């Protein structure tokens, strides 16, 4: 059986990004970067995804959506916050409707900084996520408790 890391499928969700980071995420699929080389597929379906790429800050309206997407993904799964908005809230942090980074609602494992995050660093983040994906699979296989990412205001590792 092949290594689980050879086929990580991404789900990209735009929380309330300015679309800068989204364009960079899509740039990863173009001929220049071509992440499909690593078996990465940008699927639109949470039930089939392994890695959750979230761009933009979370606001009151989409927090339940983000939570639901996270819950629909089956284990093992990894969350990557792309761009400073998804990491902390970024320039929108003080806005009245913005709750902050993605880790206000779901546990985030990997933070990719940048405004907008460059495709190179996004790929870097995804590669780190793939490593974590495998680690979680091993935990699942050995029936150990799964490690969780960082959740703002909650416990985590």
């Amino acid at each position, binding site marked *: 059986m092949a*290594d689980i890391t050879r*086929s990580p499928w991404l789900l990209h969700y735009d929380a309330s990004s300015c679309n800068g980071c989204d364009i960079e995420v899509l740039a990863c699929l173009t001929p220049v970067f071509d992440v499909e*080389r690593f*078996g990465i*597929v940008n699927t639109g379906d949470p*039930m089939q995804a392994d890695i959750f790429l979230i761009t933009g800050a979370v606001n009151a309206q989409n927090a339940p959506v983000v939570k639901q997407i996270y819950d629909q993904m*089956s284990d093992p799964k990894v969350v990557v916050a792309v761009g400073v908005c998804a990491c902390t809230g970024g320039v929108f942090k003080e806005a009245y409707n913005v709750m902050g980074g993605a880790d206000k609602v779901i546990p985030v494992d990997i933070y990719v900084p940048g405004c907008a995050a460059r495709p190179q660093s996004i790929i870097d983040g995804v590669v780190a996520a793939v490593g974590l994906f495998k680690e979680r*699979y091993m935990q699942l296989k050995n029936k150990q408790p799964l490690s969780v990412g960082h959740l703002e205001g909650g416990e985590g590792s």
Partner: protein
Amino acid sequence: MLTPLSVRFIYAIAYIVLAPFIGGLLEGIGRKISARMQRRVGPPLLQPFYDISKLLKKKRSQVTRAQGFLLTSYMLLIIFTGAMLFFGTDMLMCFLMLSTAALFLYLAGCVTTSPYSSLGAQRELIQEMAYEPAILLTALGFYLAVGSFDVETIYNSPVSPIMIIPGFFVAFVFILTIKMRKSPFDESTSHHPHQELVKGLTSEMSGRNLAIFNVTEWYETVFLLAVVFLFIKNSSAPLVSGLVGIGVVLLTYFLEILIDNTSARVHWERMLTLTWAVTLCSCGVNLLVLMIVR
């Protein structure tokens, strides 16, 4: 000259064992060619197998229990259909089995409450409506060419059936785009992400269930390409016609990828009218010519 029963059993078993490997490899080649057409490097050749292996390792989760049952039935029926064809039984029977299998897939899409899945399932029915005439006419065409529905007889016919029924061949190849779920007719599953349908019929399938669906697709692809092969094969020059047959099969598959990469999805009404028009025209003209000549 009839093939002995034991050899026919070996063919059927070879299909059951080898079809997923051939189908998976074909998909790998397809993805690679697609990537090259878009000036990308593309995934490794064995990527489809890596995907299946990953899907099987994911934690099991399914929306309803019925989904797993229905998908397994779908898979078994398709495998049985293909095995029947390779065993050399009645072609009409194979095609009827194929439609029954499609029904199980439709139900597997329907049992979930997701609107995307239900919409995909409905479109699957429309697709079936579009390709079914061509499939049944293909069986009829083989009967006209060879005088029997028996795959064994068709396989050993003295002239290649395509010489007598080229119109039916065109109709069959045309509907392959629907059957292989390629653009512009990927109405029910939308294999490119971020479309209005998410993943359509397969939206609610994850892990093991999705793996079952994918492997069944491979079985089906091999089955359909085997029918394409039957159009070419004759018993007067078995080796030459066999090699040409394999060439035509590969060319057909390449054509599907080319069409997939050069066209955008069309509205379902367009698909229906286009498919029926092509089926009626090419089969009709072929029939007329046959009636005049004979």
